């Protein structure tokens, strides 16, 4: 049967590195990269005899994430050891949290679903654990390598694992979910969520079942999803693949697959029949965490107004179109910038137009982050007021804005320096109009002969003559008047 007759069931498991300065159990830096094995100490190298001590901020950040994701925060929590042998895991166990007494559980977020409506996607848990080191393969991949090279710099970077319920029903939805998750984590400031540096990582569980069926199908876990695009493409591919197998009546089995970006296919890594036995048990070297109301309140206060609420406000109170509201609220920094400018200027629509069009264009063109932009919200507001006062035209303002963007200079100063003040003196403009008509007799004749569009040419010439400074509202009127006199 066609893919349409199957229901696709997807759940994502997301790991995000926390943006603390030091690692979760020692004082080494969490900085990405660095010379191999240069961000390592006895504790994160797992030398005999060392003990972990919990970085309080890592716990607080996890709780903050839980709050932003509408989780229940456990008043009592503990760590467990997850045991498996791997060259990048120095203690041969990962300090993590097993199923009981997790820091955060039972949350949800709202995600745009295909039909334009919002859909609640449940989050099973958010727990805290330590990251492992990295294996650098001697070849291009694991299969053609003779040996592995171990770098333990990443070992012990605090990591949260966000396990979503299998509530997603399409690859598109999965991508939306991941983007929303990223936005929320960025908003809370607990992770920089860079998929390209691995500070945001995603595994996906996907299975198919005939529409209407209650039982879940046999799932495949897909690893190595290094971008939002990869998440979507891999899931689209995998859904097709599974549908074909079902159609052929082939026997399915639980498996782990990897996304091959270059070939655009998922490939079998291993069958999950002999599932790992992690032998979890409570970490004896760490004591329990007790989270009281005071801490919860303090952490709640660190969370800014979240995007959904901002978006609603921009649309309902400030009258922004959904597209604009969505885009601006999608980044905390941009939204903060926008709101600061609105506060200075007093009206939202004009600000959003400038942000959406000119600011976005220049940010993209110059590859600059909003946090590094040289135009302060106050300067933007000032520029808008110059337009309102008729000091500059909207067209000239674009030039001023670009100059502000490049130099960070005050708009008024730019206008003065470059002599960009709008010409609104009717005498002065009338004289220029005369000059333009004199210089273009054919156009004047055309206009007077009934070709109204010839006026446009003359307006352009007038703007050219004044280097765009002529008050556009007056130019047409004056030209027409002058032409009528020559009839």
């Amino acid at each position, binding site marked *: 049967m066609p893919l349409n007759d199957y229901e696709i069931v997807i759940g994502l498991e997301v790991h995000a590195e926390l943006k603390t300065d030091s690692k979760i159990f020692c004082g080494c830096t969490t900085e990405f990269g660095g010379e191999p094995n240069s961000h390592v100490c006895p504790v994160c190298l797992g*030398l*005999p005899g060392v*003990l972990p*001590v919990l970085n309080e901020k890592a716990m607080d950040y996890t709780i903050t994430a839980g709050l932003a994701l509408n989780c229940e925060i456990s008043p009592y929590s503990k760590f467990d050891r997850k045991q498996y042998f791997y060259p990048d895991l120095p203690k041969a166990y990962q300090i993590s949290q097993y199923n009981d007494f997790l820091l955060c559980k039972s949350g949800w977020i709202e995600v745009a679903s295909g039909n334009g409506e919002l859909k609640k996607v449940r989050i099973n848990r958010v727990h805290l654990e330590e990251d492992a080191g990295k294996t650098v393969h001697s070849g291009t991949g694991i299969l053609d390598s003779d040996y592995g090279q171990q770098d333990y710099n990443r070992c012990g970077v605090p990591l949260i694992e966000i396990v979503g319920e299998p509530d997603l029903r399409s690859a598109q939805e999965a991508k939306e979910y991941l983007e929303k998750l990223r936005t929320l984590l960025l908003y809370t400031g607990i992770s920089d969520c860079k998929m390209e540096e691995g500070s945001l990582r995603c595994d996906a569980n996907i299975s198919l079942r005939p529409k209407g069926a209650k039982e879940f199908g046999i799932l495949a876990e897909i690893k190595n999803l290094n971008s939002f695009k990869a998440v979507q493409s891999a899931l689209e591919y995998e859904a097709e693949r599974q549908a074909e197998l079902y159609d052929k009546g082939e026997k399915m089995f639980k498996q782990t697959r990897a996304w091959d970006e270059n070939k655009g296919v998922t490939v079998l890594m291993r069958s999950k029949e002999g599932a790992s036995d992690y032998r979890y048990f409570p970490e004896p*070297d760490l004591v329990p965490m007790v989270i009281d109301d005071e801490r919860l309140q303090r952490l709640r206060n660190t969370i800014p107004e979240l995007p959904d609420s901002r978006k609603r406000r921009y649309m309902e109170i400030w009258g922004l179109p959904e597209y604009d509201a969505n885009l601006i609220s999608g980044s905390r920094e941009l939204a903060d910038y926008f709101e600061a400018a609105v506060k200075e200027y007093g009206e939202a629509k004009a600000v959003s137009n400038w942000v959406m069009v000119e600011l976005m264009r220049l940010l993209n063109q110059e590859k600059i982050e909003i946090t590094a932009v040289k135009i302060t919200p106050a300067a933007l507001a000032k520029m808008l007021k110059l337009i309102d006062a008729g000091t500059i035209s909207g067209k000239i303002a674009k030039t001023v804005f670009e100059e502000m963007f490049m130099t960070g200079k005050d708009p008024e100063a730019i206008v003065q320096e470059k002599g960009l003040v709008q010409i609104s003196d009717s005498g002065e403009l009338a004289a220029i109009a005369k000059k333009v008509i004199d210089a273009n007799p054919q156009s004047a004749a055309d206009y007077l002969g009934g070709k109204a569009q010839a006026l446009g040419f003359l307006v352009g010439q007038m703007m050219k003559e004044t280097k765009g400074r002529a008050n556009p509202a007056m130019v047409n009127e004056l030209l027409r008047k002058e032409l009528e006199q020559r009839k």
Partner: protein
Amino acid sequence: MELYQKTAHELQQLIAAKEVKAVEVAESVLERARQAEPKIHAFVTLAEEEAYQAARRVDEAVSKGVKLPPLAGIPVAIKDNISTAGLRTTCASKILENYIPPYDATVIAEIRNQMMVLVGKTNMDEFAMGSSTENSGLFTTRNPWDIEAVPGGSSGGSAAAVCADETILALGSDTGGSIRQPAGYCGIVGLKPTYGRVSRYGLVAYASSLDQIGPLTKDVTDCALLLQAIAKYDPKDSTSVNQPAPDYLQEMKKGAKGLRIGLAKEYLGEGISLPVKDAVQNGVKVFKDLGAEIVEVSLPHTEYALAAYYIIAPAEASSNLARYDGVRYGHRTSQKVSDAVELFMKTRQEGFGAEVKRRIMTGTYVLSSGYYDAYYLKAQKVRTLIRNDFDNAFKSCDLILTPTTPSVAFKIGSKTKDPLEMYLEDIFTVTCNLAGLPGISISGGFDNGMPIGLQMLGPLFKEEILLRAAYGFEQATDFHKKRPEI
């Protein structure tokens, strides 16, 4: 009397009074060790050069009139599972035979700060798993009272070194009796502090929820002094407890008078040799004479302690010892391997001895899927019952007197066939670790020339009560003054 025969508190006076130089003490002790070692085999590594340097620094300080820490210049031997920067730390295992730690355990940093003289690293049962040092991956240490007998274990090297005057003081570690049992077998003083009293940072973990570092000394006064030196809160150990230690020396001198000493029938029943029973009876008499009160207490879950211990300890050990995989440090197989898994399997097979493998296997099994509740969780619950027993008992007494072991030191090789029989060695000592309590073993008599250990268990963080009773007993008897002929 030679300098090496003296106690720390005697030497302390001599050094402070400039009658003896720290270098002379180090010389005397190291010479003694050189002479005794071929018979005793207590040390894995003797750190002569380092010891002389440390001693010279003490003498310089003395000559400058600097005020010295109490144990400055006193030789101390360290069990080889305590991390010493720059000095090989083997855990008596082939897997760590050439491992040189880049960092000091917190207790070692204290020892260096307090200007003690670290003379060497002592033998032990591999990774502290055993009761005789026969499980050492390197060699077996002899009991100075009878070189055919075991010194006990796992801190057997530390106990034998103190007993044979090869050091003045020693540190050991105690997970199920590993300080007290060898102290008992060697007729010296050994104290296991309350869990959390002494930092575990740098102690190579065997069973994390049970391990504690503690002193092995020639007498109770030395024990109080060394405990004082190491009983400190350590922010590097999350399980270390921030509770200031009292002045142990001062407390100790209050003696046994007025203490209520509990006797538990569960520790005095069958399986105990007659001489050991007699020694306990004699102990009771000594304490009564000292003005202590004897009360009967009951610890009904005692018989389950060993079973709980032999689930919890191997479970934690199986996890703690997983890191020895031949990647970052320690032994790596020289056999040809095709992948990392094979490397792990061969390395660990070659590097670990039989008892360590046995415990790793037991521990892996009890934590494995489907068995966790039946074994590990069950044992942790029984642990609660054992704790409750002690809480109840300490309502009516200040400490509990028991034998340290059912009989005196056994002959080398006599119990190696049957691991379970060896495990029974720990029957009186494991409860203390399960409940986190402090315990001490002192010399309480002799059986055919072999020392008998008396054990006392106290409430949490009440080491001073144990020291009071032990000091009182020691003042009233002279078992501790007897030393073996080497």
